[in-house]
């Protein structure tokens, strides 16, 4: 039996699952937006702007979800400042929650700036202060802000899996692949969100086709990493011989990866495939969390 079975469950449930899902989409969408911003053509701008908007909104929602999940939500700032020694900073480079809190803060900052820049570009900002900030983010500065948002975005998409690996819990700590898996899933769900939202913001059919082609590749990477992740678990894999294993196989692999791959291959229903990718991304977080959360230390110790 793996030594991880003797640890206790941290009760990370719905708020954390939603955070992992929303943060993954926001981070993945921002990463793609930054790439398109830097290396795409003028007709890709709607995709980049949509990506920054998704990122900004996702970062704000992520912060809110993490805060309400705390046992003492009003102490959320203890993650950033030393509560007994304000204004000294609180940072541990070896603690994923610590560097993740800082990463989310910077991701939110740069993605909101990038989103404001995109809105100012379209003349959509009515508030004078926001218009002034958004107006300042243009040209070379906008590119730099977009790049930083994209880098912090891909960090947010992946660190959540690393966070789970840096525990002593069954499944999460029994292999090192969760970070890579969540990152691939974050990018594929980010692309799916852009496929669904960008058409309403002026994205061309060619831009969407390229996003779809990229999502196909991201889904293949996700599937490969998922297979390696399960294989790396060794005897712990038998945890998947449960309801959660069924959801993983049917929901994540079947509906969330293989079905959209088939739709992409047949060049049918981009939106339908994107919705399935989002469903699969959500279910991936759900089964990863609940399959481990359900293993209770005292039952293991008592041989139940």
């Amino acid at each position, binding site marked *: 039996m793996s030594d991880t079975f003797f640890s206790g469950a*941290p009760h990370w449930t719905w708020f954390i699952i939603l955070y992992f899902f929303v943060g993954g989409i926001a981070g993945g969408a921002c990463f793609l937006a930054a790439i398109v911003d830097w290396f795409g053509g003028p007709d890709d701008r709607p995709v980049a702007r949509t990506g920054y908007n998704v990122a900004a909104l996702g970062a704000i929602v992520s912060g809110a979800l993490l805060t309400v999940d705390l046992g003492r939500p009003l102490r959320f700032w203890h*993650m950033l400042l030393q509560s007994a020694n304000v204004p000294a900073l609180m940072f541990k480079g070896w603690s994923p929650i610590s560097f993740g809190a800082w990463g989310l803060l910077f991701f939110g900052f740069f993605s909101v700036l990038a989103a404001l820049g995109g809105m100012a570009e379209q003349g959509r900002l009515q508030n004078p202060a926001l218009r002034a900030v958004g107006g300042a983010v243009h040209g070379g500065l906008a590119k730099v802000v977009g790049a930083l948002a994209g880098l912090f975005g891909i960090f947010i998409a992946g660190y959540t899996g690393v966070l789970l690996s*840096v525990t002593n819990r069954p499944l999460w700590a029994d292999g090192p692949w969760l*970070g890579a898996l969540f*990152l691939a899933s974050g990018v594929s769900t980010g692309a799916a969100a852009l496929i669904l939202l960008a058409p309403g913001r002026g994205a061309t059919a060619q831009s969407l086709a390229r996003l779809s082609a990229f999502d196909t590749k991201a889904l293949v990477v996700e599937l490969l990493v998922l297979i390696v992740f399960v294989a790396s678990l060794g005897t712990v894999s038998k945890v998947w011989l449960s309801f959660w294993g069924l959801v993983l196989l049917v929901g994540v692999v079947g509906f969330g990866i293989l079905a959209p791959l088939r739709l992409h291959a047949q060049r049918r229903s981009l939106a339908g495939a994107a919705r399935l990718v989002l469903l699969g991304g959500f279910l991936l977080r759900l089964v990863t969390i609940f399959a481990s959360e359900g293993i209770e230390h*005292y039952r293991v110790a008592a041989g139940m």
Partner: protein
Amino acid sequence: MAQAMGFFTDTTVCIGCKACEVACKEWNQLPAENGGVRELSGDSYDNTRKLDGIHWRHVRFIEQFKGPYDGRWLMMSDVCKHCVQAGCLDVCPTGAIIRTQFDTVVIQSDVCNGCRACIAACPFGVIDINPVSGTAQKCTLCYDRLQVGLEPACSKACPTDSIQFGTISELRTRAEKRVAQLKSQGVAAELYGADPGGPLGGLNSFYLLVDKPEVYGLPRHPELPTQNLRKSAGLSVASAAVLGVLALVGLRKRRMDDMGGAGGGGPN
């Protein structure tokens, strides 16, 4: 720094009286569960079940019976191990978990914000949320009593000296003598967590066991959670690089197509 202090728990003399549990609850003013109305677990005499935010001591009962007249009871009073290399302290993002001058590990309840990273990090399942405070809690090795020269409440209350308190060096000497004594009597006794060269740099609360650690609900090779950090982060970066390259290749292909289309004078 004062000398490292801790517990040596000799499970062979534990009688399962739970005086340690009661003394711990009383001294630390820990609340009752479910208003004091507790369902019987059906698991031997163990109705506490596990260590958590309001149970900092837990007497485990293990029944090993092959038949009605052929068997034995194992009993062990479990507690935080106050690891020399503590995973909970490593991952705590608020600095709420500290190492004291007695080399013990304490959660400062006024700093903890209840993120629960320490719960998942502990290889022994020791920590949990105290629903009254909303923060993670566990045994403090009676830090308040130690500071005024008193012995922890649990070891003070233990009627058989199954829980012994003292300096780690003295406890190790005592434990080795006890193991030698038991072995001379034909008992297969082993120390768990006493070796400073062992897992987690040794445990400041260590045990004398007469069966495999797993039987007592203890991991054989407890590890620091941060051992996975470098590898997991490296694989994530590699995955990001692969996906970034795939995205760039897609955009480059578009440019090539555009250039090809422009140069070839295709249909407009």
